[in-house]
Structure formats: structure tokens, C-alpha cells
């Protein structure tokens, strides 16, 4: 970056002793610093970050102690939004739905993408094609994905129940069943995000030296021993990263739910962000919605801290 700057912006002199002609003004001195230029070039981004991220984050924290519908004057209500949340049956339901969603989709997503990555790291034919194929859902529009999966889940004409029927299982009414709607959403979500985790695992696998496997071969290790005692431990930093990221994104899941089920039937797939959205933009309870956002923030924080703590305990660096 710096090198490029120097090429394209010849007015910026190189570091080191500059030919001094008299006493340079303070402004001139300032302009001669690389840091200043970095700052100036980053400024548009910083401003955007301030206006659209940092300030709203603090504003919504303040909002969470108020009752506000965007039009009437704000009212300070102290902790009442939080106490109300604790007694809100619907919130408790969507809270557990969120835990359910994350608790199933994160481990499932990690295990499957790890196996995929290991499989696609072998020397098989059309390796690149498979990699692209598994990555395709990640870059597909969620709207399109949701429509397709709604067809797949259709109990009468859908592919899912067609195949289940072939192996003698009568499939449920996926998206209209209060029991099966959440698993259906989880399956779609795992499928959609598989490619991303797979890609990160593939990168992780490239970083493992062949020497370990050769040594293991000499020691007579079987394939599953190599996998368990070499691949998995050496991928720990990757797994750590993938786990944290997956938990954060699955706590914040919204589009999948909103597009496939609108939280239904009977709120069986409604998650915190969905209920938050409803409160903010349907019921216009901005304060209440902000309080929910902070509960979510603390959930993410706790999960992340637990993972950091475990990471240190295991001595992974």
C-alpha cells in the first residue's frame, strides 16, 4: 500500500531525512506523516462506521431504557424493558428457539463441513468442480434459496418427502408442522452456509505439513487415527474461528426464518432477531426491541468468552 502511494502520489516524500529549506510549517509537517495520509484515506470509511455502526450501537443501548415509537416523545423507563422481557412468554420462546437453532446448526455445520473439506482435499477427480458446487449456495441469494427449499419441503409434491417415501418413511408436513418446521429451517441454513466453513477448513488443511502424515505412516497409523490425532488437533485454530463465527451468525439468523416461515407456524421458528424486527418495525416498540438486541449481544459475548477461555485451557495458540 505504502509503496503504491509513493508511486501514485509523488507529492508524498519518502521517510527519512528530507531536504530542509527553512522551517516547515506545522501543517506541512503533518502532511509529511504517513499516518496522516492513512487517516485521511480511511476517513470515508471511519465516518460511515461512526454514522451507521458505532453511534447507532450506543444509541440503541440508550434506547433500551426508554419507551419510544419513533413519533411520540421518548420516555425514560429505566430497566422496565428488561424486566418485561424476562416475563414475556413470547420472548422466552424465541430465546429457546434461538438456542435450539444455534445448538443444532453450529455443530452440524462444523462436522459436515470438516468432512467435506477433508474429502475434497484428497486427490479426487473434478475436485474443483465439487468445491465450487458446495460453495455455490453461499453466494446464492437467500430469497431464491428459500423459494427452492419451500418446494423441496412441500409435503405432497416436494423432493424431500419423495425420497423419504422411497426408503419407506412418511415425511412430515415440514414447514407447517410446529415440530418439524425448525429442523427444516436448520437443514436449509446448514446447507446454505456449508461452503463457507468448508473453504476455511480447506485453507486450514493446506497449512498442515505433510511431514506429520508421513511420520504417522511410518508409525503405522490408520486413516482414522491420522484424522483424529493429526488433522483435528492441528485444525483447532480453524475450528475455533469457525465455531465463533458460526455461533455469532446463527444467533443473528433472520433472513432464512423470515423468508421461509415468517416465524410460524405458531412461532415455532421465530428467533430473537425476528421477534426484535417485529417489535421494532411492526409494533413500533423501539425501546423494547433495543433491549432485546442487548440481550442478544450479551449472549454472543458469553459464548465468545467461553470459547476463548476453553481455547486457553487447551493451550491452543
Amino acid at each position, binding site marked *: 500500500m505504502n509503496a503504491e502511494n509513493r508511486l501514485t502520489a509523488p507529492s508524498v516524500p519518502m521517510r527519512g531525512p528530507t531536504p530542509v529549506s527553512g522551517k516547515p510549517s506545522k501543517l506541512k509537517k503533518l502532511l509529511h*506523516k504517513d499516518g496522516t495520509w492513512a*487517516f485521511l484515506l480511511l*476517513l470515508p470509511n471511519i465516518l460511515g462506521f461512526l454514522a451507521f455502526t458505532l453511534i447507532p450501537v450506543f444509541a440503541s443501548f440508550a434506547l433500551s431504557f426508554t419507551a419510544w415509537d*419513533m*413519533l411520540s416523545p421518548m420516555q425514560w423507563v429505566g430497566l422496565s424493558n428488561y424486566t418485561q422481557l424476562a416475563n414475556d*412468554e413470547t420472548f422466552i420462546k424465541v430465546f429457546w428457539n434461538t438456542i435450539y437453532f444455534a445448538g443444532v446448526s453450529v455443530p452440524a455445520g462444523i462436522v459436515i463441513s470438516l468432512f467435506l473439506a477433508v474429502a475434497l482435499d484428497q486427490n479426487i477427480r473434478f475436485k474443483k468442480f465439487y468445491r465450487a458446487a458446495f460453495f455455490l449456495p453461499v453466494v446464492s441469494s437467500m430469497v431464491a434459496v428459500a423459494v427452492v427449499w419451500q418446494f423441496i419441503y412441500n409435503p405432497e409434491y416436494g423432493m424431500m418427502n419423495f425420497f423419504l417415501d422411497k426408503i419407506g418413511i412418511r415425511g412430515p408436513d415440514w414447514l407447517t408442522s410446529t415440530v418439524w418446521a425448525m429442523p427444516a429451517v436448520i437443514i436449509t441454513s446448514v446447507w446454505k452456509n456449508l461452503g463457507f466453513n468448508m473453504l476455511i477448513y480447506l485453507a486450514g488443511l493446506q497449512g498442515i505439513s505433510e511431514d506429520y502424515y508421513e511420520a504417522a505412516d511410518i508409525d503405522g497409523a490408520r486413516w482414522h487415527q491420522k484424522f483424529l490425532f493429526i488433522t483435528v488437533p492441528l485444525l483447532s485454530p480453524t475450528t475455533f474461528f469457525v465455531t465463533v463465527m458460526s455461533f455469532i451468525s446463527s444467533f443473528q439468523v433472520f433472513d432464512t426464518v423470515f423468508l421461509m416461515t415468517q416465524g410460524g407456524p405458531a*412461532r415455532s421458528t421465530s428467533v430473537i432477531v425476528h421477534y426484535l424486527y417485529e417489535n421494532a418495525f411492526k409494533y*413500533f416498540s423501539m425501546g423494547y426491541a433495543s433491549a432485546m438486541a442487548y440481550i442478544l449481544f450479551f449472549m454472543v459475548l458469553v459464548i465468545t468468552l467461553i470459547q476463548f477461555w476453553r481455547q486457553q485451557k487447551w493451550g491452543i495458540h
Partner: protein
Amino acid sequence: MRMSRMLVIVMLFSLISAACSSTTTNNTVNTPSNTPDSGKKIVTLDFMGWEASPLETESVKKGLALFMEQNPNIKVNYQPVPGAQYAQKLLTMLAGNAAPDVFFLGATEYRSFQERDVLLDLTAQFELDMSLSDFIDSSAEIMNIDGNIYGVSSCTVSPVLYYNKDVFDKENISYPPSDPAKAWTWDEFREAAKKLTVKEGDKITQYGAFGLENFYMTSAEILSNGGSLFNADGTKMAINTPEANEVMQSILDLRVKDEVSPTAKTLESVGMKANQMLQTGKVAMVVDGSWALQELATMDFPVGVAALPSFQKSTTHGQAHVHSASKNTEHPEEAWKLLKFLSSEEYQIGLINEGLWMPNRRSLYTEEGIKKWYNEAVHPEGFKEMVMFFAEAEAYPFTLITENKVIDIINEETDKLWYAGQSVDDTLANIETRSNVELAK
């Protein structure tokens, strides 16, 4: 380093103040051009609506062209936006002081927006130019908030019963009557639905009826059984009654016990709409909103329209969006002119004769009035006998309350009834207790 920090701060401030000042200058530039100070100046009204259907948007534009011809000093700038999340968008615009001068407003949102004090009080002009008694009862009741008017509607729509005549002819069953006085009783409807259901092996290839498991429709049948949703002043839920219970149980039995009705979400999820099921003869009768006639009439099959099956009395409910003006509009007079035009016979007839709307003005329900909009190509045989079904409809109950969380609670609990085996007793009890908590807030 301290200097660089200073510089950043200075630049930040200058940027922010530049942004602010640019908006203020914009405002001051705009204002004079909009104020009719010389009398000849053209006033621009921003008008926002949702895209309900291409036909509706087309008709609105046609109507506005006529309005601008009649009022050369007013220019209407129409911006249709997607219907989903319309209320959110409007509220955000109002909060940001960027609201259009005149806008569509859903009847179920009307009272909650008025409560937030963002609508222009139209009472004085309304009383000068028209009267509540010009409108059918349901429309008048919706528009009237404690004697004041904040929005004027252009039409009404109601749930009705559609049927495919071919299917009835094939099974040799007489059509459901369109005259509300002769409407089928629930038992007659149920018997017909049973006869119209065809099974091949264990697969049902033709269903008798569909559509009532949607609370918009369900509520019309509750009213028909003499039940109610809320108490008289809309402060409490009053749905846990034997009347509502009977209706919900009957509708559930139609699908679960008699097996003459498909599940709603199953068919919706393959993208098959109720009117397509009717067109293809997969379902013989469909309960849907009266607006569906516009599309059904173009679908090239013999469609019939009838009064809803009746429990105790033959009735339906009616409602339609209102047109309102922003309280902060700079042109209240011009806004009223537009609102008045939008509720005129002249304007509504164009959409009524396409089948999308029904009139909200009494004058269009007289024999003379019906002639102005009746369209043989759209309105099926016997439709004239049915018009009073719309004129005498009760106001849709949800338009009379301000808490929009209630409908979500009802949908959630009825989902449990339709799809998860919750009993009718529990459903109604849950709706009542949970909604009353919200209504008491």
C-alpha cells in the same frame, strides 16, 4: 500526533456541518417554489401508495391525470412502493419529517396512526363537502374517530364465496345463492362440500372448499354466528364465546373430520393460489376477498360469486384503506382537494367495474348507481342480487382497535389450532388472555 487528531476532528465537524447545511439549504430552496404565494405557482403534492396490483397502480395514475387536468395548479407526484412493510416505511418517513403530503393508509393502521397524532384533521372540510351518511355503514364507522375524520376511503372489500360453475355442473349440484337472504346455511355448505370432494384411491383429486382457515375469513363467519371479537369499545377481547367456538370447530372439522378441504400452507407453499385451485377445478369453492374477482374474471373459467355460508345470519365484514394527509403538510387545501377526488364516484368507478373494488358510497348501490359500474364481463350472473351483502357488511373488527399485536397473537394461536392439534377451547382462551394483556397496555 495531537495535530493530526485535531485535523481529523476538524474535518469531521466540517463534514457533518456541511451535510447539515446542505439539507437546510435544500429545504429553503424547496419551500418557496411550493408555496402558492402568487396564486399562479404550481403546487406539488407528494402522494404515496402501495402496489396492490398493476391494475390498481394503472388506475390510480389514470385518475391522477384526470385530477391534474381539473386542477392545473396542482401537480401530484405519485410514488407507489411495495405493499409489504408499507406501514413501517410510512412511519419512518413521518418520524424523519420526510412524509408525503397525501398517502394510502391501511384501515387496520388508521387508528394507531391517528393515536400518534400524525394525521391531518380533515373534519372541517369533510363536513363542508360530504357527509358520513353518504357512505355505507362499515366505511363510515371506520373513518369516524370520535366524531372526527382523518382519512377518507375510496371503496370497500369483503370476504365472499367463489365457486367454479363447471365443477358444480359436473357433479350436478345447484350453485350457492348469491342473494344473501337465501345464503346457504353452514350445513348446506358442508353437505355440498362433501359431495364435491372426489377421491381416487386414498388421494383426494378434488376438494369441496378452501379458504376459511384464514382469520380474515374466519372472523366473518364468527360475526355470522352472532359472535364478536372485541367488546363494544374495543378495549377488551370478547372472543371466548360459544358462538366463536362453534364456528372455529366447524371450520376445523371441514378439513380434519370431513376431509373436504386442503391445508392452506401446503398449497400456498407450492405457489398455488386459491384462485388457481379454483380455476383448475382442484377446489370447487373458495372463500376469498372480493378483490379477487378482478383476477378471477380474467382467468377464463366460469366463476360464480355467492354470499358466505351463514350460521345465524348472512353477513360479512367490510373495510378498505383510507387516504390521509400528513399533519405537517404545507398544502392542506390542495391535499384535501386530492383526497376529495380520490373518494369521488368518478374515481372509484374505474376500479369497481374491473372487479377489484366495491363502492363505499350509498349512491352507487341504488339501481341507477349500479348501472354506472356494473360490468357484464366481470360481474357474474346474479351479482346484482348480492350487492347489499357489501353495503350492509359490518366494519372489519380489527380496524376499530389500535393494538396491532393482537392479530399476530390470533394468528399464532390459530396456527396451533389448525396445525398442531390445540383444542378450540384452549385456542380461544389463549387468544383472550394474551390479547387482553396487550390491549390493557
